[in-house]
């Protein structure tokens, strides 16, 4: 398998493509992804792929990470895999997801909405790329 994607301070085209591939692959499973986005963790100088699903509550985060890891493993060899250390799974009712939801709703498709230095409900979102917020 290819080396894990390098995730750093810049959101690269490779990261955007890789995130989209993971989301597309998860959509073919029973894991219902209600929100998915890249988020800049400014204090840690890195980006994180956030996936929100009700399965985090019902199955627990371990099972959801396991399913995400399995999906990544099955991606075609041409895809650059994201390490699960660069992914966060959250409940779809998590405050971060609610915050994104108050900013926009994309519907169940896959979009690419960049939000840089936006203040949402008094909270600064330094940088993010939204694939889906439902």
């Amino acid at each position, binding site marked *: 398998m290819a080396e894990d994607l390098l995730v750093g301070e810049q959101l690269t085209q490779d990261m955007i493509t890789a995130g989209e591939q993971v989301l597309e692959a998860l959509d073919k499973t029973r894991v219902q992804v209600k929100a998915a986005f890249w988020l800049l963790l400014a204090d840690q100088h890195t980006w994180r792929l956030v996936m929100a699903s009700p399965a985090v509550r019902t199955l*627990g985060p371990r099972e959801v*990470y396991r399913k995400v890891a399995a999906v990544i493993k099955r991606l075609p060899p041409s895809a650059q895999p994201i390490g699960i*250390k660069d992914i966060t799974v959250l409940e779809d009712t998590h405050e971060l997801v609610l915050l994104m939801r108050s900013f926009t709703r994309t519907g169940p498709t896959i979009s690419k909405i960049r939000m840089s230095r936006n203040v949402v409900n008094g909270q600064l979102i330094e940088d993010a790329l939204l694939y889906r917020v439902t």
Partner: protein
Amino acid sequence: MHTFDENLLDPQQLSRLRVRGAKALLNAGNFAGACYMAGYSVEGAIRAAIAKQTRRHDFPNKQLAQDSWTHDLKKLLQIASLWPKFDLAMKENSNLELNWAIAKEWKESSRFVLSTSQNQAADLYSACTARTHGILSWLKTYW
């Protein structure tokens, strides 16, 4: 009433105390509390590794001491100079990587997340304490 100062316990003792606390809270159905304690046990273990790198009569490095007062587990691993080794270990061990994926989300404020489910608490507890591939088990070789 008998009281004790937590600062007088060494970080290893404190870490073990937190594990027992997490288990008790998990069994009692206090899931937010269990998460708080489980994460703290990892924090204590990393601090123990940092403390081990300090010699008895060393004059404290002010920057290191100040930086060490973070609750960010990755930052603590970096301060302990353990992150490159840990990152390599994760590449070689998918179970450790899975456990870190869960544990990395821990925040000191987790005790206030009252909606924490049993699954979430049990997963974090096992990610930290699993005998073979748990975070603490890896850290114990360095404390």
